[in-house]
């Protein structure tokens, strides 16, 4: 992920470029004041900005342009917002239609159209995953449309992950895949979490929880900072065996559960496993926060152990 340009912030990956606008730039494009834009966000929830690392608002260029066009033909801000939103939801409808009619090219096109208006993270969250959910509900897990959609989405997410930039953070994550496989409705969400973590700069390794042999070699290479147990299909004893193998090799690590129902919450509390939210974006953020806070605690503990006792008392503590 890179951010370039002073007037127009552009966040880019290798294949998709989404143009972002700062509040002042978005306000200029709409011919309103920045305060008005923030008031619209509070009242209408639109346009919905992302946040930069410095917590500044970043608006998607496509959303602002869609709103500007709607405002020109609208009778109120509410109706313009409603029309702009309809335009955005059209992508999900197109994707559902394309997948239900086994049209791979049209499905690719629908997601490309979504990417023109949103970031990749939001396209996955707002278009891809809801479309898959709708197809799964409508046709069922044993239908040909679902099989096609699951295969297509898996290919798409893997392709997107291959195009993600090289890891830039010193964060390594081990994902234990406890899903049934490609046809499992959780599989797409797990691939999405992988993609977002990779785009967030983390090093990743995703392994099935059924494979325990040779796990030590994998862990020696990755040296994970946290473990994610993802998916609800594998039995508890299979998952526990895998988690035990990880712990006995890599030592105690923060463990999180993603899209896995906790049948025995008491047990999960005692093992310290933390539940991640079902949204991959929120899950990725929580995961990164967890790892970074855990690293901070470890670093503090190390500094307490290694720092020598000061020979000269500090000024503040002299009188104490």
């Amino acid at each position, binding site marked *: 992920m890179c951010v370039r340009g002073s007037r127009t912030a552009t966040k880019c990956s290798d294949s998709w470029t989404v143009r972002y606008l700062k509040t002042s730039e978005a306000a200029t494009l*709409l*011919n*309103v*004041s920045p*305060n*008005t834009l923030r*008031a*619209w966000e509070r*009242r*209408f929830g639109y346009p919905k900005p992302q946040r930069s690392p410095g917590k500044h608002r970043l608006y998607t260029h496509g959303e602002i342009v869609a709103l500007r066009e709607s*405002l*020109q*033909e*609208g*009778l*109120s*801000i*509410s*109706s*313009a*917002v*409603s029309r702009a939103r309809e335009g955005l939801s059209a992508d999900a409808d197109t994707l559902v239609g394309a997948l239900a009619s086994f049209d791979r090219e049209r499905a690719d096109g629908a997601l490309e159209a979504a990417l023109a208006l949103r970031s990749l993270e939001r396209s996955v969250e707002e278009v891809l995953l809801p479309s898959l959910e709708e197809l799964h509900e409508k046709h069922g897990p044993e239908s040909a449309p679902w099989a096609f959609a699951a295969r297509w989405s898996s290919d798409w997410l893997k392709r997107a992950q291959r195009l993600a930039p090289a890891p830039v953070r010193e964060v390594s994550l081990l994902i234990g895949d406890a899903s049934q496989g490609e046809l499992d409705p959780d599989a797409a969400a797990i691939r999405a979490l992988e993609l977002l973590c990779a785009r967030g700069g983390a090093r990743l390794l995703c392994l099935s929880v059924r494979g325990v042999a040779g796990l030590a070699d994998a862990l020696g290479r990755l040296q994970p900072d946290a473990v994610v147990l993802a998916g609800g299909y594998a039995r508890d004893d299979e998952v526990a065996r895998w988690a035990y193998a990880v712990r006995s090799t890599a030592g105690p690590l923060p463990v999180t559960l993603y899209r896995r129902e906790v049948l025995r919450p008491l047990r999960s509390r005692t093992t310290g496993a933390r539940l991640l939210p079902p949204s991959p974006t929120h899950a990725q953020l929580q995961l990164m926060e967890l790892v970074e806070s855990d690293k901070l605690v470890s670093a503090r503990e190390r500094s307490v152990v290694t720092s020598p006792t000061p020979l000269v008392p500090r000024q503040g503590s002299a009188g104490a």
Partner: protein
Amino acid sequence: MDAAQRSPFRVVQDSLPPEPVAIFCGHCGRSPESEQDTTASRVCAKCGLGLLLQTPVPTAPSASDPFLVVDGSLTICALSRQAEKLLGTTETDAVNRHIAEFLVPGDAEDSATETLAALLTWAARGESPSKSVVVRPTNTFGVRYWARVGPCGPPTAALLVLADAR
């Protein structure tokens, strides 16, 4: 008749002067400051939550008048702040809903052929001059309002201004 003798058609100027229009905000109902350039931005500079609309002066609302804007299919497109209070809803909830969910004709016994729906449809086509009609809130009895109905825009739509309770 010879073509040379036939009087040619001529464009006849409209004898009626153009109707004066008023500009108002579709949310707060206030008129814009004279220096606001309405061609650059239609967003009300005072409240920032409404678009500036035009309507013939007889229909124009004041800042304290509750009013609604509906399109040709009688779907609500805008609701003023005062109308939000009066009808107990918000613009975001009311937009894209049929006007009959909020207001219905108040005179059931009225023999006039022009019903509220017809008046609004004509106004939304820009064909109707300002007219008055009696309405009442849906599912509420004993409360009636005089309402002025006229065209507004752009784009062309119907404006319904609720005046004094009757």
